[in-house]
C-alpha cells in the first residue's frame, strides 16, 4: 500500500510529508543518525534519512530537464506516483506492488478534499492549512489504505474547531456515518425549501479531416447535481436512454416510434458511488440517495448521432516559400433560435511567421506571435449562420529542411443544448419519513455543451 505521501512546491521543497510505512526510507540508517548525533548534528544532516525518498523525487522528477515521461517513476526500487495541480506536486510513494489505479484515484480525491476545505491548491493555501492537511491525511489514509474520503462526512468531525462539545449521540452518529452504507450523507439535514439543480454538461470532441470527413467524434458528458433536500431522500433519475425507452415501448408500439427518434444510444456510463449499481445492471434504473450539495451523478460517453455544433472548413495555400494564404469558414449547425457563446477559433501559424494580415467578417481576430497562432474570437453566434476569416501570412525564409507540421485548427465554444441529444426525462424524489413529496421539490435543469478537443486538420 501507499508508503508515504508528500506535497512539494515547484522548487521541490517539501510542504507536507506523511510517512505511513517504514520501508520507503531506510529505517536502520535513520535511527543510526539519530542515536549518534545531538540536535545540532542532526540538524546539519538535514533531519531524517527518510528524506532519501523525498530527495530522490525532487532530483529525478521535479528538477528533471525533460518533460514528464511517465506519471509513475521507479527510482531505486521505490515507485513514485505523481500528479501536479497548478505548481504543486503531490507524490505517493511505495515499495510494494500496489493498485496503481487506486493510488491515482486517491491522489485526485485528496485534491478534491483539500479544495473542498480551503479552495485552490496553492503553496500558500497548503502552508496555511498544514495542520488541517495532516489531520486529513491521518483520517483518510490509514497505514496506506484509503478510508472514507467523502467531504460531506469528513466535515462533520474534522473541523479545526475541536469537537469537545459533541454529545454521545452525535459522536455515534458521526462514526456510523463515516463507516456506514451511506457514508456520503449525514442524517438530519433540513431545508425550508427543497430544491435541486441538474446540469447536463457535455464536451463534444471532434477530429475532422481537411476534406470534412469525421475521423472521430464523441461526447463525454456529466450530469452534475446540486441537491438541497431534507432528510434521506430516495431519488430516481430518468433520461432518454435508448435501452430504457425501447424496453418501455414494448407494450405500445406507437410510442416506440415516436419516442424512439429522440432516444440516444449511450456507449458507456459510470456513476457516483451513491448510485445502486446492481440495480442499474439489472433494471437500468438509476436510483440513489444523493450527497448534500454538489456532486457528479454520472458520466457518460456517446459516439452515435452527435450534433456537431460547428463545422470548420479550412483552406491553406502556400504561395511560394515565403507566403501562406489561409481561409477558414465556420458554419453553425443548430436551431436558429439558439445562441452559441465564447467562440474561439485558433489557426496555427508556422514558427517563421514574420507578419500576418487578417480580415474577418465577424468578431475580432489577432495574430499572437507568442502562441504561434491567429486567434479569432466571436462573442455570440446564432444557429445556421456562417462566418469567414482570411489571412495572409508572411514567412521568413529559412534553411530548415523540415516542413511545417500544420497542427490542426482548434475551436472553442459553448452552446445551450446537449450535443449528444440527451434529455432529462424526470428526477423523482421520495422521502417517506418527512412530509414533503416530489411535487414540492423545485427542480432546475440546464444543458451546456462545450467544445472538448474540437479539431479540424488543415
Amino acid at each position, binding site marked *: 500500500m501507499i508508503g508515504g505521501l508528500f506535497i512539494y512546491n515547484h522548487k521541490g521543497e517539501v510542504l507536507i*510529508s506523511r510517512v505511513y510505512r517504514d520501508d520507503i526510507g531506510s529505517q536502520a540508517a535513520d535511527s543510526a543518525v539519530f542515536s549518534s548525533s545531538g540536535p545540532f548534528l542532526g540538524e546539519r544532516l538535514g533531519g531524517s534519512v527518510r528524506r532519501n525518498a523525498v530527495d530522490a523525487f525532487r532530483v529525478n522528477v521535479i528538477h528533471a530537464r525533460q518533460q514528464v515521461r511517465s506519471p509513475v517513476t521507479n527510482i531505486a526500487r521505490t515507485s513514485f506516483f505523481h500528479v501536479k495541480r497548478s505548481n504543486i506536486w503531490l507524490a505517493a510513494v511505495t*515499495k510494494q506492488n500496489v493498485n496503481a489505479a487506486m493510488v491515482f484515484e486517491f491522489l485526485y480525491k485528496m485534491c478534491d478534499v483539500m479544495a473542498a476545505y480551503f479552495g485552490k491548491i496553492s503553496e500558500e493555501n497548503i502552508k496555511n492549512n498544514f495542520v488541517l492537511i495532516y489531520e486529513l491525511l491521518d483520517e483518510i489514509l490509514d497505514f496506506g489504505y484509503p478510508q472514507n474520503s467523502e467531504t460531506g462526512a469528513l466535515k462533520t468531525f474534522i473541523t479545526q474547531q475541536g469537537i469537545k462539545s459533541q454529545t454521545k449521540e452525535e459522536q455515534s452518529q458521526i462514526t*456510523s456515518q463515516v463507516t456506514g452504507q451511506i457514508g456520503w450523507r449525514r442524517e438530519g439535514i433540513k431545508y425550508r425549501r427543497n430544491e435541486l439543480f441538474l446540469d447536463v454538461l457535455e464536451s463534444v470532441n471532434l477530429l475532422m479531416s481537411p476534406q470534412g470527413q469525421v475521423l472521430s467524434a464523441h461526447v463525454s458528458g456529466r450530469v452534475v447535481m446540486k441537491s438541497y433536500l431534507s432528510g434521506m431522500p430516495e431519488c430516481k433519475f430518468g433520461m432518454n436512454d435508448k435501452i430504457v425507452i425501447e424496453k418501455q415501448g414494448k407494450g405500445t408500439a406507437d410510442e416506440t416510434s415516436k419516442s424512439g427518434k429522440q432516444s440516444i444510444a449511450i456507449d458507456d456510463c459510470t456513476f457516483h458511488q451513491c448510485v445502486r449499481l446492481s440495480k442499474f445492471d439489472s433494471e437500468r434504473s438509476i436510483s440513489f440517495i444523493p450527497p448534500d450539495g454538489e456532486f457528479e451523478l454520472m458520466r457518460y460517453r456517446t459516439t452515435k448521432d452527435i450534433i456537431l455544433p460547428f463545422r470548420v472548413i479550412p483552406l491553406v495555400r502556400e504561395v511560394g516559400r515565403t507566403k501562406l494564404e489561409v481561409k477558414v469558414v465556420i458554419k453553425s449547425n443548430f436551431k436558429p433560435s439558439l445562441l452559441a457563446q465564447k467562440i474561439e477559433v485558433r489557426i496555427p501559424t508556422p514558427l517563421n511567421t514574420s507578419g500576418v494580415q487578417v480580415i474577418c467578417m465577424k468578431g475580432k481576430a489577432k495574430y499572437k506571435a507568442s502562441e504561434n497562432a491567429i486567434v479569432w474570437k466571436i462573442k455570440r453566434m446564432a444557429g445556421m449562420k456562417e462566418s469567414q476569416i482570411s489571412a495572409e501570412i508572411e514567412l521568413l525564409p529559412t534553411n530548415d529542411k523540415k516542413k511545417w507540421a500544420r497542427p490542426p485548427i482548434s475551436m472553442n465554444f459553448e452552446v445551450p443544448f446537449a450535443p449528444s441529444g440527451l434529455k432529462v426525462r424526470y428526477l423523482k424524489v421520495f422521502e417517506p419519513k418527512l412530509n414533503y413529496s416530489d411535487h414540492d421539490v423545485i427542480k432546475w435543469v440546464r444543458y451546456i455543451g462545450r467544445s472538448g478537443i474540437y479539431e479540424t486538420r488543415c
Partner: protein
Amino acid sequence: MTDSKYFTTTKKGEIFELKAELNSDKKEKKKEAVKKVIASMTVGKDVSALFPDVVNCMQTDNLELKKLVYLYLMNYAKSQPDMAIMAVNTFVKDCEDPNPLIRALAVRTMGCIRVDKITEYLCEPLRKCLKDEDPYVRKTAAVCVAKLHDINAQLVEDQGFLDTLKDLISDSNPMVVANAVAALSEIAESHPSSNLLDLNPQSINKLLTALNECTEWGQIFILDCLANYTPKDDREAQSICERVTPRLSHANSAVVLSAVKVLMKFMEMLSKDLDYYGTLLKKLAPPLVTLLSAEPELQYVALRNINLIVQKRPEILKHEMKVFFVKYNDPIYVKLEKLDIMIRLASQANIAQVLAELKEYATEVDVDFVRKAVRAIGRCAIKVEQSAERCVSTLLDLIQTKVNYVVQEAIVVIKDIFRKYPNKYESVIATLCENLDSLDEPEARAAMIWIVGEYAERIDNADELLESFLEGFHDESTQVQLQLLTGIVKLFLKKPTETQELVQQVLSLATQDSDNPDLRDRGYIYWRLLSTDPVAAKEVVLAEKPLISEETDLIEPTLLDELICYIGTLASVYHKPPSAFVEGGRGVVHKSLPPRTASSESAESPETAPAGAPPGEQPDVIPAQGDLLGDLLNLDLGPPVSSPPLTTSSVQMGAVDLLGGGLDSLMGDEPEGIGGTNFVAPPTAAVPASLGAPIGSGLSDLFDLTSGVGTLSGSYVAPKAVWLPAMKAKGLEISGTFTRQVGSISMDLQLTNKALQVMTDFAIQFNRNSFGLAPAAPLQVHAPLSPNQTVEISLPLSTVGSVMKMEPLNNLQVAVKNNIDVFYFSTLYPLHILFVEDGKMDRQMFLATWKDIPNENEAQFQIRDCPLNAEAATSKLQSSNIFTVAKRNVEGQDMLYQSLKLTNGIWVLAELRVQPGNPSCTDLELSLKCRAPEVSQHVYQAYETILKN
C-alpha cells in the same frame, strides 16, 4: 488562519525558544509551539530534541493538539524508544475513552509507533478495540492488526489476532469487512503457504454482499481479494462474474480495473461456447474505453493495462481502434502508449485509417513519438500484408521530408520490410541511397549497409557506397562495423571481379586493426571461408534468410498470464512481475490464471483460438523466453541446494512452471492437457531423496566401473546414448542413461565440450513429467569444462517433483544451462528405474487384485527371440525389482506370476509364459494387468530390455 508563519522561523536559537513555549502554561501558546515543531519537522529539520516537552503536551482534552502530538510521536518515537514509553499510559487511557473517535485515534497511532516496548502494551487495547461496539473503532483496529503484523508477526499469531480478524469478515458493517479483507490480504501475502483468507463459496458470498455496500476503496480491497480466489467450476465462476459486472459502471477507475481483473481471470474458466462468455466480452469493451476519458495519469495506467488485455484477448477491443487515436494535447506518455495499442489492433479492416493517422503523427514535434510512429508504419506493413505497399509509399513520402531522424527511422523499418517481403519493393533502393549522407545513427547506418550488401547486384555503385563507409571504419560502432564487414563480403561474392581490393581492405581492418573479438572472429571466418572454398562461402554468406515474424514485441505468454492476474497494479504498469521491483519476500508468489475446466476443454476448437496468435508464430517468441529461462535457472539453481527439497520446492515451482510452458510450446505440445487428464498420480516419495542422493551417487560411481561385468545388485543399465548432439547445443554434447541402485534413481550424464570455449555454470532443470522425476541435487560440475574435455556426472533424482502426464508417458524434457545458453532436449527413460524394491505382493493379495482389475485393463504382449528358462528370467527380472510371486507349470509351459510397484504407488501384475522345452519357440508371452493401463506398454518395453540384456 495563517499557519504559514510557522514555516518562516529560521532563527538560530529556535529549539530553545520552542522548548520554553512548549512548557508554557497557556494552552494557546502550547498549541502554537507544537504547530511550529510540526512545521519544522515537515521541512526536514530535526526537532527530536524536543521529545519530552512535546510528549508532555499529550494529555489534553483538545483533540487538535492531541493529534499534533501523536503526529510528532509517530515520527520520532523510534529514535527515542525510552522516552516513548512515557506516552504509553496516555494511549492506554485514550483507548478507554468514551468518545469512539478518540479510542480509534489512540489505537491507530499506537500501531504506527514501531517501538517494541510500546507494541507490548498495544495488545490488550487492540483486543478490546477489535470487539468495540462502534464500527469506526473496529475498522481502525482491523488495520492496526496489519500494522502490528508488520512490526512483530509472531506476536500477532500468538495473540490470536488473526482469528479475530477473520471473524471481522462477517462483521455487519461493510467498512469493517473491507478493512479486514485488506489487512488479511496483506498479511497473507507474506505467508503464501498459510490459508489465511480461506476463501470458500460462503466467504465469497459474504464479500460479494459487502461489495455492494462499502466505500469505493473498500470495493477495491474486496475485488482485489476476490481475484485471488479460484472458483471450483465454471458455474461458480460465472455467478461471481455476474455479481461483479455492475462494478464496471463505477465512477472510480480503480474499482473498474479491479473488476476487469476479476472478470479477465475468471473468464479463463468459462467455455467459449457459452452465451455468457460472449456477453461478458461485450460488456468489457465500453468501460475500458471510458477509462480513456479519465485524467491523464489514470489514462496511462489504463492504457498499460489495455496493452495487456489486447494481447490476451484481442477480440474485446478489436472494433475500438478510433478511441486510441492520439490527440494533439495528450501528454507524451499517453501518446506513446496509444500508439502501441494502435499497432496491436491494426488489421486489414482498419489499416487505411491507421496509416493515415500514423502519417499525421510522423510530423509531430516530440522526437520519440515521431520515431515510434515511423516504426509503427513499418510494423503495420509487416503485420498486414495487404497494406505493405501503401506503407512503403508512406515511408517514402516521409523520407522526402528530409527530417533527419524520420529518414533514419524509415530506413531501419524498410530493412525489415525487405526481410519480410523479399524481391518486392527493391525499387525504392535508389531513393534510400540518396539519403546515405544524412545517416548518423548506428542503427540506421547498419540498416542501410545491410540493404546495400543484400542487394549489391542491383545497385550499380554498391562498391562506392560501401567504400565510403569504410573510410571511418574505426569510428563506427560495432553494429555498423559488423554489418559493413558482412556487406562487403556479400558484395564480393556477388561481384568478385571489381571488389577484390575492397574485401581485402575490410578483412584486414577487421582482423588486424580491431580489438573487438566479435569483429575479429567474424573477419577470420570470412577470410578462411573465402580462401579455402569460395563456393561454400557463397552458400553460407548468401544463404536464404528465414522470414521475420509479425509481432516481435509480444509479451511472453506465461508472463502475460501472470500480469493479467495483476491488472490495475504497478506490475501491470511496468509490465514486470512484482518480484522484479519489490524487495524481499513480498509479492514473490507467482500468480497464474485458473486452468480451464474439463467441460470447456473439449470446446477448444482450432478456429476459436485467438486470431492474433496462430500456432505458426509461436517459435518467434521463444528466444526471449529462453533468455528469461536462463535467468530463472541462474536464480533458482545457482546456490547449492543444501536444504531438504521440500522447503525449496515452493520457490522452484515458479521456475518449473515457466519451464513447463516454455518446453511445451517449444515441442509444439498442447499445454491444455493438464486439467482434463484423469491420470495424475500423487507423487509419493518412495525414497527420501535427501538421504538417498549422496549414497546413490557415490555408489553409482563405484558401480560404473563394474557395471560392464554384469552385477546383480542393481537393475539393468542401458549404455549411454547421445541425448543432445553438439550441433544443436553450441558445442555441448550430452549423452547419458538412467540407473537405479539400491533404491535411488540417478541420471548418469557425460558432458563433452566440443566447442572452442570453456564452459562453466552448468545447471539442469526438468519439465514436469509423468512420474514427478526431478533432480535431487544441483548439477555439480566442479571445474570449468575446457574444450575437448569430458566429465561424467551422476545426478541423483527424486520422484517428488511436479507431475504432468507426458506423451509418451516416459518422456522427460530437460533443460541444461551453461554460460553460453540454455538448451533443451527430451529423452525417454526406461520405466524399470521406477520399479521400487518393495514391489513384491503376497499371493492372496495378488489373486484378489488380479480378479479385481477389470479385464479390459489386461494387455497382451509377445517378447520374441528370448531363449530363457523360467529361473534365468526370474533372476534377471528380480534384479530390476520385478518379483515373482508364484510359479506354475501348465502343459509344459512355465507360468510366472509377477508383481512390481512404481514409485507413485501403482501396482502392475504380470503373467509371463515361458516354454523351456521347446527350442523352436523362443517367444515369451506376457500379459499385464494394471489399474492404470497406460503404463502397460512401457512396462512391456522394460521387460523386453531387461530380459534381452
